[in-house]
Protein backbone atom coordinates (compact mmCIF):
# COMPACT_ATOMS: atom_id res chain seq x y z
CA UNK A 1 0.00 0.00 0.00
CA UNK A 2 1.08 3.57 -0.58
CA UNK A 3 0.96 4.47 3.09
CA UNK A 4 3.92 2.26 3.97
CA UNK A 5 6.24 5.07 5.02
CA UNK A 6 3.52 7.33 6.36
CA UNK A 7 3.89 8.88 9.77
CA UNK A 8 1.43 8.40 12.57
CA UNK A 9 -0.09 11.82 11.89
CA UNK A 10 -0.64 11.20 8.20
CA UNK A 11 -2.36 7.92 8.96
CA UNK A 12 -4.66 9.62 11.40
CA UNK A 13 -5.53 12.20 8.77
CA UNK A 14 -6.32 9.50 6.27
CA UNK A 15 -8.55 7.76 8.77
CA UNK A 16 -10.36 10.99 9.49
CA UNK A 17 -10.97 11.59 5.81
CA UNK A 18 -12.36 8.11 5.31
CA UNK A 19 -14.83 8.36 8.17
CA UNK A 20 -16.12 11.89 7.94
CA UNK A 21 -19.83 12.43 7.56
CA UNK A 22 -20.37 14.05 4.11
CA UNK A 23 -18.33 11.29 2.58
CA UNK A 24 -20.57 8.66 4.04
CA UNK A 25 -23.61 10.36 2.57
CA UNK A 26 -21.90 10.32 -0.81
CA UNK A 27 -21.22 6.61 -0.46
CA UNK A 28 -24.87 5.96 0.35
CA UNK A 29 -25.90 7.91 -2.75
CA UNK A 30 -23.40 5.85 -4.74
CA UNK A 31 -24.86 2.61 -3.42
CA UNK A 32 -28.32 3.67 -4.52
CA UNK A 33 -26.94 4.53 -7.95
CA UNK A 34 -25.31 1.10 -8.24
CA UNK A 35 -28.61 -0.57 -7.33
CA UNK A 36 -30.46 1.55 -9.89
CA UNK A 37 -27.94 0.81 -12.65
CA UNK A 38 -27.93 -2.90 -11.88
CA UNK A 39 -31.71 -3.09 -11.89
CA UNK A 40 -31.84 -1.19 -15.21
CA UNK A 41 -29.25 -3.48 -16.83
CA UNK A 42 -30.90 -6.62 -15.50
CA UNK A 43 -34.24 -5.41 -16.83
CA UNK A 44 -32.66 -5.24 -20.30
CA UNK A 45 -31.08 -8.70 -19.94
CA UNK A 46 -34.23 -10.32 -18.54
CA UNK A 47 -36.69 -8.60 -20.89
CA UNK A 48 -36.47 -11.03 -23.85
CA UNK A 49 -37.18 -13.95 -21.52
CA UNK A 50 -39.98 -12.11 -19.75
CA UNK A 51 -41.50 -11.18 -23.08
CA UNK A 52 -41.28 -14.74 -24.42
CA UNK A 53 -42.92 -16.03 -21.24
CA UNK A 54 -45.63 -13.39 -21.50
CA UNK A 55 -46.42 -14.16 -25.14
CA UNK A 56 -46.59 -17.88 -24.31
CA UNK A 57 -49.59 -17.16 -22.06
CA UNK A 58 -51.59 -15.12 -24.60
CA UNK A 59 -54.13 -16.12 -27.20
CA UNK A 60 -53.63 -15.38 -30.88
CA UNK A 61 -55.53 -12.10 -30.78
CA UNK A 62 -53.41 -10.77 -27.92
CA UNK A 63 -50.21 -11.86 -29.69
CA UNK A 64 -50.91 -9.71 -32.73
CA UNK A 65 -52.65 -6.78 -31.01
CA UNK A 66 -51.27 -3.25 -31.40
CA UNK A 67 -49.88 -1.79 -29.19
CA UNK A 68 -48.21 -5.05 -28.11
CA UNK A 69 -49.49 -6.51 -24.87
CA UNK A 70 -46.70 -6.73 -22.28
CA UNK A 71 -48.71 -8.46 -19.58
CA UNK A 72 -49.33 -12.18 -19.15
CA UNK A 73 -52.73 -13.60 -19.98
CA UNK A 74 -54.64 -16.71 -19.01
CA UNK A 75 -54.00 -19.11 -21.90
CA UNK A 76 -50.77 -20.61 -20.61
CA UNK A 77 -51.97 -24.19 -20.12
CA UNK A 78 -53.79 -24.27 -23.49
CA UNK A 79 -50.72 -23.02 -25.34
CA UNK A 80 -48.27 -25.38 -23.66
CA UNK A 81 -50.57 -28.35 -24.26
CA UNK A 82 -51.04 -27.34 -27.90
CA UNK A 83 -47.31 -26.83 -28.49
CA UNK A 84 -46.58 -30.12 -26.72
CA UNK A 85 -48.95 -31.95 -29.06
CA UNK A 86 -48.09 -30.10 -32.25
CA UNK A 87 -44.31 -30.49 -32.07
CA UNK A 88 -44.15 -33.84 -30.30
CA UNK A 89 -42.43 -32.07 -27.39
CA UNK A 90 -42.42 -35.05 -25.05
CA UNK A 91 -40.27 -37.10 -27.37
CA UNK A 92 -37.94 -34.22 -28.21
CA UNK A 93 -37.39 -33.29 -24.55
CA UNK A 94 -36.69 -36.92 -23.75
CA UNK A 95 -34.13 -37.12 -26.57
CA UNK A 96 -32.46 -33.90 -25.40
CA UNK A 97 -32.32 -35.13 -21.81
CA UNK A 98 -30.92 -38.51 -22.85
CA UNK A 99 -28.31 -36.83 -25.03
CA UNK A 100 -27.27 -34.22 -22.44
CA UNK A 101 -26.99 -36.66 -19.53
CA UNK A 102 -25.18 -39.35 -21.55
CA UNK A 103 -22.70 -36.91 -23.08
CA UNK A 104 -21.97 -35.29 -19.70
CA UNK A 105 -21.53 -38.57 -17.82
CA UNK A 106 -19.55 -40.10 -20.68
CA UNK A 107 -17.16 -37.17 -20.91
CA UNK A 108 -16.61 -37.20 -17.14
CA UNK A 109 -15.93 -40.96 -16.92
CA UNK A 110 -13.66 -41.07 -19.97
CA UNK A 111 -11.73 -38.00 -18.82
CA UNK A 112 -11.28 -39.23 -15.25
CA UNK A 113 -9.82 -42.49 -16.48
CA UNK A 114 -7.42 -40.96 -18.97
CA UNK A 115 -6.29 -38.23 -16.55
CA UNK A 116 -5.66 -40.94 -13.96
CA UNK A 117 -3.51 -42.89 -16.41
CA UNK A 118 -1.56 -39.79 -17.44
CA UNK A 119 -0.85 -38.65 -13.86
CA UNK A 120 -0.28 -41.93 -12.03
CA UNK A 121 1.44 -44.13 -14.59
CA UNK A 122 4.65 -43.86 -16.51
CA UNK A 123 4.02 -45.49 -19.84
CA UNK A 124 5.37 -45.26 -23.34
CA UNK A 125 3.33 -42.75 -25.32
CA UNK A 126 2.12 -40.80 -22.28
CA UNK A 127 3.10 -37.43 -23.74
CA UNK A 128 1.67 -38.43 -27.12
CA UNK A 129 -1.68 -39.26 -25.48
CA UNK A 130 -1.69 -35.92 -23.74
CA UNK A 131 -1.11 -34.04 -26.98
CA UNK A 132 -3.64 -36.08 -28.92
CA UNK A 133 -6.28 -35.15 -26.36
CA UNK A 134 -5.17 -31.52 -26.47
CA UNK A 135 -5.45 -31.33 -30.26
CA UNK A 136 -9.17 -32.23 -30.17
CA UNK A 137 -9.67 -28.64 -28.99
CA UNK A 138 -8.65 -27.52 -32.46
CA UNK A 139 -11.07 -29.81 -34.28
CA UNK A 140 -14.63 -28.55 -33.66
CA UNK A 141 -17.41 -30.23 -35.64
CA UNK A 142 -17.42 -27.79 -38.60
CA UNK A 143 -13.80 -28.47 -39.58
CA UNK A 144 -14.52 -32.19 -40.05
CA UNK A 145 -18.18 -31.95 -40.96
CA UNK A 146 -18.63 -34.11 -44.04
CA UNK A 147 -16.08 -36.79 -43.15
CA UNK A 148 -17.44 -37.28 -39.62
CA UNK A 149 -20.86 -37.76 -41.16
CA UNK A 150 -19.34 -40.41 -43.40
CA UNK A 151 -17.77 -42.23 -40.42
CA UNK A 152 -21.08 -42.23 -38.54
CA UNK A 153 -22.82 -43.53 -41.66
CA UNK A 154 -20.26 -46.33 -42.06
CA UNK A 155 -20.81 -47.36 -38.44
CA UNK A 156 -24.57 -47.40 -39.05
CA UNK A 157 -25.06 -44.86 -36.27
CA UNK A 158 -27.23 -42.35 -38.13
CA UNK A 159 -30.52 -41.78 -36.26
CA UNK A 160 -29.26 -43.53 -33.16
CA UNK A 161 -28.43 -42.56 -29.60
CA UNK A 162 -24.92 -43.94 -30.10
CA UNK A 163 -24.40 -41.52 -32.97
CA UNK A 164 -25.84 -38.64 -30.97
CA UNK A 165 -23.64 -39.18 -27.93
CA UNK A 166 -20.48 -41.28 -28.26
CA UNK A 167 -18.63 -39.10 -30.83
CA UNK A 168 -19.03 -36.08 -28.51
CA UNK A 169 -17.51 -37.81 -25.49
CA UNK A 170 -13.85 -36.89 -26.00
CA UNK A 171 -13.04 -33.95 -23.75
CA UNK A 172 -9.73 -32.16 -23.50
CA UNK A 173 -11.00 -29.62 -20.99
CA UNK A 174 -12.43 -32.22 -18.59
CA UNK A 175 -9.24 -34.28 -18.86
CA UNK A 176 -7.11 -31.22 -18.04
CA UNK A 177 -9.33 -30.35 -15.09
CA UNK A 178 -8.98 -33.84 -13.57
CA UNK A 179 -5.25 -33.91 -14.32
CA UNK A 180 -4.84 -30.56 -12.58
CA UNK A 181 -6.84 -31.83 -9.61
CA UNK A 182 -4.93 -35.13 -9.30
CA UNK A 183 -1.65 -33.19 -9.31
CA UNK A 184 -2.80 -31.31 -6.19
CA UNK A 185 -3.36 -34.59 -4.30
CA UNK A 186 -0.11 -35.33 -2.41
CA UNK A 187 1.72 -38.28 -3.97
CA UNK A 188 2.25 -39.72 -0.47
CA UNK A 189 -1.42 -40.70 -0.56
CA UNK A 190 -0.91 -43.01 -3.51
CA UNK A 191 2.28 -44.39 -1.98
CA UNK A 192 0.47 -45.05 1.29
CA UNK A 193 -2.34 -46.79 -0.57
CA UNK A 194 0.24 -48.96 -2.28
CA UNK A 195 1.85 -49.90 1.03
CA UNK A 196 -1.59 -50.92 2.26
CA UNK A 197 -1.81 -53.21 -0.70
CA UNK A 198 -4.43 -51.21 -2.63
CA UNK A 199 -4.07 -51.42 -6.41
CA UNK A 200 -4.45 -48.42 -8.73
CA UNK A 201 -8.13 -49.02 -9.49
CA UNK A 202 -8.89 -49.40 -5.79
CA UNK A 203 -7.08 -46.10 -5.17
CA UNK A 204 -9.04 -44.37 -7.95
CA UNK A 205 -12.39 -45.73 -6.81
CA UNK A 206 -11.94 -45.58 -3.05
CA UNK A 207 -9.81 -42.46 -2.65
CA UNK A 208 -9.72 -40.15 -5.69
CA UNK A 209 -13.38 -40.46 -6.66
CA UNK A 210 -14.75 -39.37 -3.26
CA UNK A 211 -12.38 -36.39 -3.38
CA UNK A 212 -13.52 -35.43 -6.88
CA UNK A 213 -17.23 -34.86 -6.29
CA UNK A 214 -16.96 -31.07 -6.36
CA UNK A 215 -15.17 -31.21 -9.72
CA UNK A 216 -17.62 -33.78 -11.05
CA UNK A 217 -20.64 -31.68 -10.06
CA UNK A 218 -19.13 -28.56 -11.62
CA UNK A 219 -18.28 -30.36 -14.86
CA UNK A 220 -21.67 -32.03 -14.99
CA UNK A 221 -23.51 -28.70 -14.96
CA UNK A 222 -21.37 -27.21 -17.73
CA UNK A 223 -21.37 -30.38 -19.85
CA UNK A 224 -25.12 -30.94 -19.45
CA UNK A 225 -25.73 -27.47 -20.87
CA UNK A 226 -23.22 -28.18 -23.65
CA UNK A 227 -25.05 -31.40 -24.57
CA UNK A 228 -28.55 -29.97 -24.31
CA UNK A 229 -27.73 -26.98 -26.52
CA UNK A 230 -26.04 -28.89 -29.36
CA UNK A 231 -27.48 -27.94 -32.74
CA UNK A 232 -25.28 -28.87 -35.71
CA UNK A 233 -24.51 -32.36 -34.42
CA UNK A 234 -28.10 -33.65 -33.94
CA UNK A 235 -29.16 -31.87 -37.13
CA UNK A 236 -26.51 -33.82 -39.02
CA UNK A 237 -26.91 -37.20 -37.29
CA UNK A 238 -30.71 -37.42 -37.16
CA UNK A 239 -33.44 -36.90 -39.72
CA UNK A 240 -36.40 -38.67 -38.17
CA UNK A 241 -39.06 -37.17 -35.94
CA UNK A 242 -38.41 -39.82 -33.29
CA UNK A 243 -34.73 -38.88 -32.86
CA UNK A 244 -34.99 -35.10 -33.05
CA UNK A 245 -33.80 -33.02 -30.06
CA UNK A 246 -35.78 -30.05 -28.82
CA UNK A 247 -33.29 -27.35 -29.84
CA UNK A 248 -33.41 -28.38 -33.52
CA UNK A 249 -37.08 -29.41 -33.50
CA UNK A 250 -38.36 -26.06 -32.25
CA UNK A 251 -37.75 -24.41 -35.59
CA UNK A 252 -40.60 -26.35 -37.24
CA UNK A 253 -43.08 -24.37 -35.10
CA UNK A 254 -42.06 -21.03 -36.63
CA UNK A 255 -44.77 -19.69 -38.92
CA UNK A 256 -42.68 -18.77 -41.97
CA UNK A 257 -45.12 -17.89 -44.71
CA UNK A 258 -47.78 -15.21 -44.62
CA UNK A 259 -50.57 -17.72 -45.11
CA UNK A 260 -49.89 -19.50 -41.82
CA UNK A 261 -51.50 -18.27 -38.63
CA UNK A 262 -48.96 -16.25 -36.64
CA UNK A 263 -48.98 -18.69 -33.72
CA UNK A 264 -46.08 -17.06 -31.91
CA UNK A 265 -47.67 -17.94 -28.58
CA UNK A 266 -47.13 -21.64 -29.36
CA UNK A 267 -43.52 -21.26 -30.42
CA UNK A 268 -42.76 -19.17 -27.34
CA UNK A 269 -44.34 -21.91 -25.24
CA UNK A 270 -42.05 -24.39 -27.00
CA UNK A 271 -39.04 -22.12 -26.46
CA UNK A 272 -39.81 -21.89 -22.74
CA UNK A 273 -39.90 -25.67 -22.47
CA UNK A 274 -36.62 -25.98 -24.41
CA UNK A 275 -34.75 -23.47 -22.27
CA UNK A 276 -36.14 -24.35 -18.85
CA UNK A 277 -33.94 -27.40 -18.02
CA UNK A 278 -30.52 -25.77 -18.69
CA UNK A 279 -31.54 -22.44 -17.14
CA UNK A 280 -32.98 -24.17 -14.06
CA UNK A 281 -29.73 -26.10 -13.64
CA UNK A 282 -27.72 -22.86 -13.70
CA UNK A 283 -30.00 -21.20 -11.16
CA UNK A 284 -30.18 -24.12 -8.74
CA UNK A 285 -26.57 -25.26 -9.12
CA UNK A 286 -25.06 -21.82 -9.51
CA UNK A 287 -22.06 -22.50 -7.30
CA UNK A 288 -21.07 -25.55 -9.32
CA UNK A 289 -21.83 -23.80 -12.57
CA UNK A 290 -19.41 -20.93 -11.87
CA UNK A 291 -16.74 -23.32 -10.64
CA UNK A 292 -17.16 -25.50 -13.71
CA UNK A 293 -16.96 -22.58 -16.12
CA UNK A 294 -14.04 -20.73 -14.62
CA UNK A 295 -11.92 -23.78 -13.82
CA UNK A 296 -12.49 -25.84 -16.94
CA UNK A 297 -12.29 -22.84 -19.28
CA UNK A 298 -14.87 -24.08 -21.71
Amino acid at each position, binding site marked *: *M*SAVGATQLERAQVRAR*VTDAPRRARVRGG*TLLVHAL*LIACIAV*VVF*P*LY*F*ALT*VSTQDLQQ*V*VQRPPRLLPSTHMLDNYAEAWRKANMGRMLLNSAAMAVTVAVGKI*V*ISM*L*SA*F*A*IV*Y*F*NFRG*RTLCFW*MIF*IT*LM*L*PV*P*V*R*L*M*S*TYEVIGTLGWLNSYEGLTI*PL*MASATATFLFRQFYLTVPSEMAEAA*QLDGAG*PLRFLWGFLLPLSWANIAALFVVLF*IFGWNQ*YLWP*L*MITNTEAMRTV*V*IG*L*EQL*IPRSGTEL*PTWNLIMAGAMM*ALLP*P*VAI*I*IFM*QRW*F*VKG*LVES*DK
Partner: protein
Amino acid sequence: MQRAVFKSRWLPYLLVAPQLAVTVLFFFWPAVKSLQLSLYRVSPFGDRSTFIGLENFTKLLADPDYYSSVLNSFLFAGGVTALSVFGSLVLAGLATQKIRGLAVYRTLLLWPYGIAPAVAGIIFLFIFHPAYGILPYFLSFVTDYEFNWLLKGWVAMTLVIVATAWTHLGYNIAFYIAGLLAIPASVMEAADVDGAGPLRRFTAIVFPLVSPITFYLVVLNMVFAFFESFGVVDAVTKGGPGQATEIMVYKLYKDGFIGLNLGSSGAQSVILMAIVIGLTVLQFRFAERKVTYR
Protein backbone atom coordinates in the same frame (compact mmCIF):
# COMPACT_ATOMS: atom_id res chain seq x y z
CA MET B 1 4.63 -34.23 -16.16
CA GLN B 2 6.10 -35.83 -13.02
CA ARG B 3 4.33 -38.17 -10.57
CA ALA B 4 3.72 -41.75 -11.81
CA VAL B 5 3.39 -43.97 -8.79
CA PHE B 6 1.77 -47.14 -10.00
CA LYS B 7 3.33 -49.69 -12.27
CA SER B 8 1.48 -51.77 -14.79
CA ARG B 9 2.27 -52.84 -18.31
CA TRP B 10 -1.27 -52.73 -19.66
CA LEU B 11 -3.54 -50.84 -17.27
CA PRO B 12 -2.65 -47.28 -18.38
CA TYR B 13 -3.40 -48.18 -21.99
CA LEU B 14 -6.73 -49.63 -20.98
CA LEU B 15 -7.54 -46.44 -19.06
CA VAL B 16 -6.79 -44.07 -21.94
CA ALA B 17 -8.33 -46.39 -24.55
CA PRO B 18 -11.91 -45.01 -24.52
CA GLN B 19 -10.75 -41.41 -24.84
CA LEU B 20 -8.25 -42.24 -27.58
CA ALA B 21 -10.73 -44.40 -29.46
CA VAL B 22 -13.22 -41.52 -29.67
CA THR B 23 -10.41 -39.09 -30.49
CA VAL B 24 -8.97 -41.13 -33.33
CA LEU B 25 -12.24 -42.37 -34.82
CA PHE B 26 -14.27 -39.14 -34.67
CA PHE B 27 -11.63 -36.40 -34.61
CA PHE B 28 -8.35 -37.41 -36.24
CA TRP B 29 -9.57 -39.74 -38.94
CA PRO B 30 -12.28 -37.31 -40.20
CA ALA B 31 -9.86 -34.39 -39.98
CA VAL B 32 -7.35 -36.22 -42.14
CA LYS B 33 -10.15 -37.17 -44.52
CA SER B 34 -11.17 -33.50 -44.73
CA LEU B 35 -7.60 -32.55 -45.61
CA GLN B 36 -7.54 -35.24 -48.26
CA LEU B 37 -10.99 -34.33 -49.59
CA SER B 38 -9.84 -30.76 -50.10
CA LEU B 39 -7.37 -31.94 -52.76
CA TYR B 40 -9.86 -33.99 -54.76
CA ARG B 41 -12.82 -33.44 -56.99
CA VAL B 42 -15.52 -35.83 -55.80
CA SER B 43 -18.67 -36.69 -57.68
CA PRO B 44 -21.85 -35.85 -55.73
CA PHE B 45 -22.45 -39.45 -54.70
CA GLY B 46 -18.85 -39.99 -53.71
CA ASP B 47 -18.24 -42.84 -56.14
CA ARG B 48 -15.55 -41.14 -58.26
CA SER B 49 -12.78 -38.85 -57.10
CA THR B 50 -9.96 -37.18 -59.01
CA PHE B 51 -6.85 -35.60 -57.53
CA ILE B 52 -6.81 -31.93 -58.53
CA GLY B 53 -4.20 -30.42 -56.21
CA LEU B 54 -5.10 -27.01 -54.87
CA GLU B 55 -7.86 -26.32 -57.38
CA ASN B 56 -10.59 -26.40 -54.70
CA PHE B 57 -8.74 -23.65 -52.86
CA THR B 58 -8.07 -21.48 -55.90
CA LYS B 59 -11.72 -21.80 -56.89
CA LEU B 60 -12.83 -20.76 -53.41
CA LEU B 61 -10.49 -17.80 -53.36
CA ALA B 62 -11.88 -16.65 -56.70
CA ASP B 63 -15.46 -16.94 -55.46
CA PRO B 64 -17.01 -13.63 -54.31
CA ASP B 65 -19.62 -15.59 -52.30
CA TYR B 66 -16.83 -17.11 -50.25
CA TYR B 67 -15.34 -13.69 -49.54
CA SER B 68 -18.67 -12.43 -48.41
CA SER B 69 -19.05 -15.39 -46.04
CA VAL B 70 -15.58 -14.66 -44.60
CA LEU B 71 -16.50 -11.01 -44.17
CA ASN B 72 -19.84 -11.96 -42.58
CA SER B 73 -18.08 -14.32 -40.17
CA PHE B 74 -15.70 -11.64 -38.95
CA LEU B 75 -18.49 -9.07 -38.77
CA PHE B 76 -20.65 -11.50 -36.81
CA ALA B 77 -17.87 -12.70 -34.49
CA GLY B 78 -16.60 -9.15 -33.98
CA GLY B 79 -20.07 -7.81 -33.22
CA VAL B 80 -20.94 -10.61 -30.80
CA THR B 81 -17.59 -10.32 -29.02
CA ALA B 82 -17.62 -6.53 -28.70
CA LEU B 83 -21.18 -6.45 -27.43
CA SER B 84 -21.01 -9.32 -24.97
CA VAL B 85 -17.49 -8.75 -23.59
CA PHE B 86 -17.98 -5.03 -23.04
CA GLY B 87 -21.50 -5.49 -21.67
CA SER B 88 -20.28 -8.21 -19.33
CA LEU B 89 -17.44 -6.07 -17.97
CA VAL B 90 -19.84 -3.27 -17.11
CA LEU B 91 -22.35 -5.67 -15.52
CA ALA B 92 -19.67 -7.55 -13.59
CA GLY B 93 -18.21 -4.22 -12.43
CA LEU B 94 -21.60 -3.28 -11.02
CA ALA B 95 -22.18 -6.74 -9.51
CA THR B 96 -18.93 -6.65 -7.51
CA GLN B 97 -19.60 -3.38 -5.69
CA LYS B 98 -20.13 -3.55 -1.95
CA ILE B 99 -23.93 -3.56 -1.85
CA ARG B 100 -26.67 -5.77 -0.47
CA GLY B 101 -28.44 -8.43 -2.49
CA LEU B 102 -25.44 -9.32 -4.65
CA ALA B 103 -26.28 -13.03 -4.69
CA VAL B 104 -29.68 -12.28 -6.24
CA TYR B 105 -28.22 -9.87 -8.80
CA ARG B 106 -25.55 -12.38 -9.84
CA THR B 107 -28.10 -15.15 -10.30
CA LEU B 108 -30.16 -12.83 -12.49
CA LEU B 109 -27.10 -12.17 -14.67
CA LEU B 110 -25.75 -15.70 -15.13
CA TRP B 111 -28.74 -17.66 -16.43
CA PRO B 112 -28.66 -16.52 -20.11
CA TYR B 113 -25.72 -18.89 -20.62
CA GLY B 114 -28.20 -21.78 -20.42
CA ILE B 115 -30.14 -20.66 -23.48
CA ALA B 116 -29.13 -22.31 -26.73
CA PRO B 117 -28.20 -19.73 -29.39
CA ALA B 118 -30.88 -21.16 -31.68
CA VAL B 119 -33.58 -20.75 -29.02
CA ALA B 120 -32.37 -17.22 -28.26
CA GLY B 121 -32.52 -16.55 -31.98
CA ILE B 122 -36.16 -17.65 -32.12
CA ILE B 123 -37.09 -15.35 -29.22
CA PHE B 124 -35.34 -12.39 -30.88
CA LEU B 125 -36.91 -13.35 -34.20
CA PHE B 126 -40.29 -12.53 -32.68
CA ILE B 127 -39.00 -9.34 -31.03
CA PHE B 128 -37.69 -8.25 -34.47
CA HIS B 129 -40.72 -9.55 -36.41
CA PRO B 130 -41.63 -6.97 -39.10
CA ALA B 131 -45.39 -7.32 -38.57
CA TYR B 132 -45.85 -8.39 -34.94
CA GLY B 133 -42.48 -7.58 -33.35
CA ILE B 134 -42.24 -5.19 -30.45
CA LEU B 135 -38.99 -3.57 -31.63
CA PRO B 136 -40.16 -2.42 -35.11
CA TYR B 137 -43.37 -1.26 -33.45
CA PHE B 138 -41.62 1.12 -31.05
CA LEU B 139 -39.07 2.18 -33.66
CA SER B 140 -41.91 3.20 -35.98
CA PHE B 141 -42.68 6.11 -33.62
CA VAL B 142 -39.13 7.42 -33.98
CA THR B 143 -38.36 6.81 -37.64
CA ASP B 144 -40.02 5.93 -40.92
CA TYR B 145 -37.18 3.58 -41.77
CA GLU B 146 -38.47 0.10 -42.50
CA PHE B 147 -36.81 -2.03 -39.86
CA ASN B 148 -37.46 -5.35 -41.62
CA TRP B 149 -34.87 -8.13 -41.32
CA LEU B 150 -36.40 -9.99 -44.24
CA LEU B 151 -35.47 -7.11 -46.53
CA LYS B 152 -32.49 -5.42 -44.89
CA GLY B 153 -29.31 -7.46 -44.51
CA TRP B 154 -27.89 -5.38 -41.70
CA VAL B 155 -31.05 -5.75 -39.64
CA ALA B 156 -30.82 -9.54 -40.00
CA MET B 157 -27.15 -9.38 -38.99
CA THR B 158 -28.03 -7.23 -35.96
CA LEU B 159 -30.70 -9.75 -35.01
CA VAL B 160 -28.34 -12.75 -34.98
CA ILE B 161 -25.56 -10.76 -33.27
CA VAL B 162 -27.79 -9.52 -30.45
CA ALA B 163 -29.34 -12.96 -29.88
CA THR B 164 -25.92 -14.64 -29.76
CA ALA B 165 -24.33 -11.97 -27.56
CA TRP B 166 -27.22 -12.40 -25.14
CA THR B 167 -26.37 -16.09 -24.65
CA HIS B 168 -22.66 -15.30 -24.12
CA LEU B 169 -23.33 -12.87 -21.26
CA GLY B 170 -23.48 -15.39 -18.42
CA TYR B 171 -20.19 -16.94 -19.43
CA ASN B 172 -18.27 -13.67 -19.62
CA ILE B 173 -19.80 -12.29 -16.43
CA ALA B 174 -18.77 -15.41 -14.48
CA PHE B 175 -15.15 -14.87 -15.59
CA TYR B 176 -15.14 -11.14 -14.91
CA ILE B 177 -16.68 -11.52 -11.46
CA ALA B 178 -13.97 -14.05 -10.56
CA GLY B 179 -11.32 -11.66 -11.89
CA LEU B 180 -12.72 -8.55 -10.23
CA LEU B 181 -13.05 -10.26 -6.86
CA ALA B 182 -9.37 -11.22 -7.10
CA ILE B 183 -8.25 -7.56 -7.17
CA PRO B 184 -6.88 -6.93 -3.66
CA ALA B 185 -9.13 -4.66 -1.61
CA SER B 186 -6.05 -2.69 -0.53
CA VAL B 187 -5.47 -1.49 -4.10
CA MET B 188 -8.98 -0.09 -4.38
CA GLU B 189 -8.81 1.46 -0.92
CA ALA B 190 -5.53 3.12 -1.78
CA ALA B 191 -7.08 4.64 -4.89
CA ASP B 192 -10.09 5.71 -2.86
CA VAL B 193 -7.89 7.41 -0.28
CA ASP B 194 -6.04 9.16 -3.07
CA GLY B 195 -9.37 10.61 -4.10
CA ALA B 196 -10.05 8.66 -7.30
CA GLY B 197 -13.75 8.56 -8.17
CA PRO B 198 -15.53 5.39 -9.30
CA LEU B 199 -15.08 6.09 -13.01
CA ARG B 200 -11.40 6.92 -12.63
CA ARG B 201 -10.85 3.82 -10.46
CA PHE B 202 -12.45 1.74 -13.18
CA THR B 203 -10.42 3.15 -16.09
CA ALA B 204 -7.08 3.50 -14.28
CA ILE B 205 -7.05 0.38 -12.09
CA VAL B 206 -9.77 -2.15 -12.80
CA PHE B 207 -9.59 -2.12 -16.58
CA PRO B 208 -5.80 -2.65 -16.82
CA LEU B 209 -5.87 -5.31 -14.10
CA VAL B 210 -8.52 -7.39 -15.86
CA SER B 211 -7.09 -6.87 -19.34
CA PRO B 212 -5.60 -10.40 -19.48
CA ILE B 213 -9.10 -11.77 -18.81
CA THR B 214 -10.49 -9.43 -21.45
CA PHE B 215 -8.05 -10.70 -24.09
CA TYR B 216 -8.79 -14.27 -23.12
CA LEU B 217 -12.55 -13.70 -23.34
CA VAL B 218 -12.21 -11.91 -26.68
CA VAL B 219 -10.47 -14.95 -28.15
CA LEU B 220 -12.94 -17.39 -26.59
CA ASN B 221 -15.97 -15.41 -27.74
CA MET B 222 -14.51 -15.33 -31.25
CA VAL B 223 -14.12 -19.12 -31.18
CA PHE B 224 -17.71 -19.56 -29.99
CA ALA B 225 -19.05 -17.10 -32.55
CA PHE B 226 -17.12 -18.78 -35.36
CA PHE B 227 -17.76 -22.42 -34.55
CA GLU B 228 -20.78 -22.73 -32.23
CA SER B 229 -23.15 -20.30 -33.91
CA PHE B 230 -24.44 -22.41 -36.74
CA GLY B 231 -27.71 -22.92 -34.87
CA VAL B 232 -28.73 -19.30 -34.62
CA VAL B 233 -28.22 -18.71 -38.35
CA ASP B 234 -29.90 -21.95 -39.39
CA ALA B 235 -32.93 -21.56 -37.13
CA VAL B 236 -33.50 -17.86 -37.78
CA THR B 237 -32.24 -16.46 -41.09
CA LYS B 238 -30.95 -19.47 -43.09
CA GLY B 239 -28.14 -17.18 -44.21
CA GLY B 240 -30.50 -14.60 -45.69
CA PRO B 241 -31.71 -12.19 -46.81
CA GLY B 242 -29.58 -12.81 -49.88
CA GLN B 243 -26.35 -13.92 -48.24
CA ALA B 244 -26.27 -11.20 -45.61
CA THR B 245 -25.95 -13.59 -42.65
CA GLU B 246 -24.23 -16.49 -44.39
CA ILE B 247 -21.25 -17.13 -42.11
CA MET B 248 -18.44 -19.53 -43.09
CA VAL B 249 -19.77 -22.49 -41.12
CA TYR B 250 -23.23 -22.07 -42.65
CA LYS B 251 -21.79 -21.91 -46.18
CA LEU B 252 -19.73 -25.02 -45.47
CA TYR B 253 -22.86 -26.87 -44.35
CA LYS B 254 -24.86 -25.62 -47.33
CA ASP B 255 -22.20 -26.50 -49.91
CA GLY B 256 -21.49 -29.88 -48.31
CA PHE B 257 -24.84 -31.22 -47.19
CA ILE B 258 -27.19 -29.51 -49.60
CA GLY B 259 -24.95 -28.79 -52.60
CA LEU B 260 -23.02 -32.07 -52.16
CA ASN B 261 -19.85 -30.31 -53.25
CA LEU B 262 -17.50 -32.43 -51.14
CA GLY B 263 -14.23 -31.05 -52.50
CA SER B 264 -15.15 -27.45 -51.84
CA SER B 265 -16.53 -28.25 -48.38
CA GLY B 266 -13.24 -30.06 -47.62
CA ALA B 267 -11.27 -26.98 -48.63
CA GLN B 268 -13.55 -24.78 -46.51
CA SER B 269 -12.99 -27.14 -43.56
CA VAL B 270 -9.24 -26.78 -43.95
CA ILE B 271 -9.44 -22.98 -43.95
CA LEU B 272 -11.60 -23.08 -40.81
CA MET B 273 -9.05 -25.43 -39.26
CA ALA B 274 -6.33 -22.82 -39.81
CA ILE B 275 -8.51 -20.20 -38.11
CA VAL B 276 -9.31 -22.38 -35.09
CA ILE B 277 -5.64 -23.35 -34.68
CA GLY B 278 -4.67 -19.67 -34.67
CA LEU B 279 -7.36 -18.80 -32.14
CA THR B 280 -6.50 -21.76 -29.87
CA VAL B 281 -2.83 -20.77 -29.80
CA LEU B 282 -3.87 -17.24 -28.81
CA GLN B 283 -6.28 -18.64 -26.22
CA PHE B 284 -3.56 -20.60 -24.45
CA ARG B 285 -1.14 -17.69 -24.56
CA PHE B 286 -3.69 -15.57 -22.74
CA ALA B 287 -4.76 -18.43 -20.46
CA GLU B 288 -1.20 -18.60 -19.12
CA ARG B 289 -1.03 -14.87 -18.60
CA LYS B 290 -4.45 -14.82 -17.00
CA VAL B 291 -3.16 -17.30 -14.43
CA THR B 292 -0.07 -15.24 -13.55
CA TYR B 293 -2.12 -12.09 -13.07
CA ARG B 294 -4.65 -13.76 -10.80
